[in-house]
């Protein structure tokens, strides 16, 4: 596999929910290479502040166009939100591993928290092409932050109850599975670390197969800085790197530090 390390002109940048943007750029090469769960390390500015790239999941692919979905949380994402067609972004990728969407299971349960929805439109496309039924559980702080584009069979939960289920997305998933029989399901989850931890606990308690797409502070995205460790379970080596061994991990293989959950 070859790696792309190039500046691309932005094709479009659209506000799709509160503080949430969908940015597209054209790269036939990346569009054919990128797989669900992988990420791009994106340089938002030529200057030195911000200094580092920002990792973003590939969200969807439309022909030659690659789309990322992001919320504005700081300087880098703020700069990215102000990119207009023709402005350039530096792109390094494809990076990381993919979701195990080719594994043997009957129904995919996608569980997303907040901007953790980002990798799932592409995963949904791939799953549907393979004839796998998909159920989506989407948690958000409130109704104005909900992004459902590219998703199917969506169950929504909000922290404030402004739309859908009033509660966490893990509770929403639990209630649903208590009332419906889903054979041979596999969970694919992405979101804030405390949410991923509760999905992980739920999956392990109910003996459901589960993959988590992690986020982490990250500098290089390619395994040279060692800056994005996640603790392994039942393994001699203490840590895996989120960037190269992940970002997608079997829930049984990793665990979170207490201070990652605060």
């Amino acid at each position, binding site marked *: 596999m070859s790696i792309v390390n190039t500046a691309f002109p932005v094709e479009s940048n659209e506000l799709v929910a509160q503080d949430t943007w969908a940015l597209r750029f054209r790269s036939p090469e990346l569009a054919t290479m990128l797989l669900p769960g992988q990420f791009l390390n994106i340089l938002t500015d030529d200057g030195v502040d911000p200094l580092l*790239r920002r990792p973003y999941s590939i969200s969807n692919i439309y022909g030659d166009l690659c789309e990322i979905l992001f919320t504005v949380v700081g300087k880098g994402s703020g700069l990215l939100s102000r990119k207009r067609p023709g402005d350039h972004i530096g792109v390094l990728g494809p990076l990381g591993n993919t979701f195990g969407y080719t594994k043997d299971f009957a129904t995919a349960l996608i569980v997303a928290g907040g901007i953790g929805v980002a990798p799932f439109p592409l995963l949904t496309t791939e799953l549907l092409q393979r004839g796998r039924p998909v159920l989506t559980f989407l948690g958000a702080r409130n109704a104005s932050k909900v992004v459902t584009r590219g998703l199917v069979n969506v169950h929504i939960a909000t922290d404030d109850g402004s739309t859908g289920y009033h509660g966490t997305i893990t509770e929403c998933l639990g209630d649903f599975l208590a009332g419906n029989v889903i054979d041979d399901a596999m969970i694919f989850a992405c979101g804030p670390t405390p949410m991923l931890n509760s999905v992980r606990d739920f999956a392990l308690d109910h003996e459901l197969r589960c993959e988590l797409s992690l986020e982490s*502070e*990250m500098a290089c995205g390619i395994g040279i800085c060692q800056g994005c460790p996640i603790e392994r379970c039942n393994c001699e080596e203490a840590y895996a790197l989120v960037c190269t061994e992940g970002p997608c991990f079997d829930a049984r293989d990793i665990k979170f530090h207490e201070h990652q959950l605060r």
Partner: protein
Amino acid sequence: MNTSIDFAGIHLHNRVLVASGTFGYGNEAAAFTDLRSIGGIVTKSVSRLPRHGNQPTRIAETPAGMLNSIGLANVGVEAFIADKLPFLRTIGTSIIVNIAASSIDEYCDVLERLDDEDGIDGYEINVSCPNVKEGGLNFGTRCEMTETITREMRKRTRRALIVKLTPNVTHIADFARACEAEGADAVSLINTLVGMAVDVNTRRPKLSTITGGLSGPAIKPVALAKVYEVSKVVAIPIIGIGGIMTWEDAIEFMLVGATAVQIGTANFRDPDSAVKIARGMEAYCKEHNIEDIQELVGSMRVAGDITAPGFVNVVRQA
């Protein structure tokens, strides 16, 4: 146009190396750059036993810089020799192994073990990691410890011996002078500056170890001043490190006295940085009709006599 240099048995085909801890063991970056076009690779630190490194969070970005607290995560010397060195040998550029330890015995053991292996051009002794509980900075901030380690290393190898110095001291020049006196072939500087950052919402430090090492363009002016200071007191080559992002930065370091440079944090932003910087330096030399890049070393033009009384300067007279 010549960009190469030979010193202490090391041949650098250009003056741009990649810094320890910013380029893994070479193999990780192979898909992202032309390794052979890099002047030299300084490996991730190697210690006697594998080290898992620190708990997350290990990284925090700061204005024009970053804090890290990796904690010398590395595979250990045996796995390095078995799994990493074979690939490094195939690259065709100079290989310098960075050694870290928490005791003088450990430094000696690791160096002796490595000295049995071929394919290593030299060693960089890390006496200045701020992110480990034992050893690390303790060695690098006490001149007599730096001296002892250099002496012990020198006894044990004929290969190039480079000591990597910390800026977290009052007078870095004293340490450089001690290294030279004990037989070091070169000094490299600077390692990271101790720094920290706090999340005001959670009131918690951003790094799990509270403090970490600051690197990136934010520290370049400090690094330049330290290289300049050291260049006034030692005759051995200086390898300049600290926030080099562009070829202009690298040339600056050479002008103040660096014979070569190491690229660190820039590799995280662009793993092809070292190659791009080396090309830029070459183009600069051609444009300025410089036949040998060595001409640049210490060639900064200073008006007036810097030894005159009252001249404000960091350089203390010996």
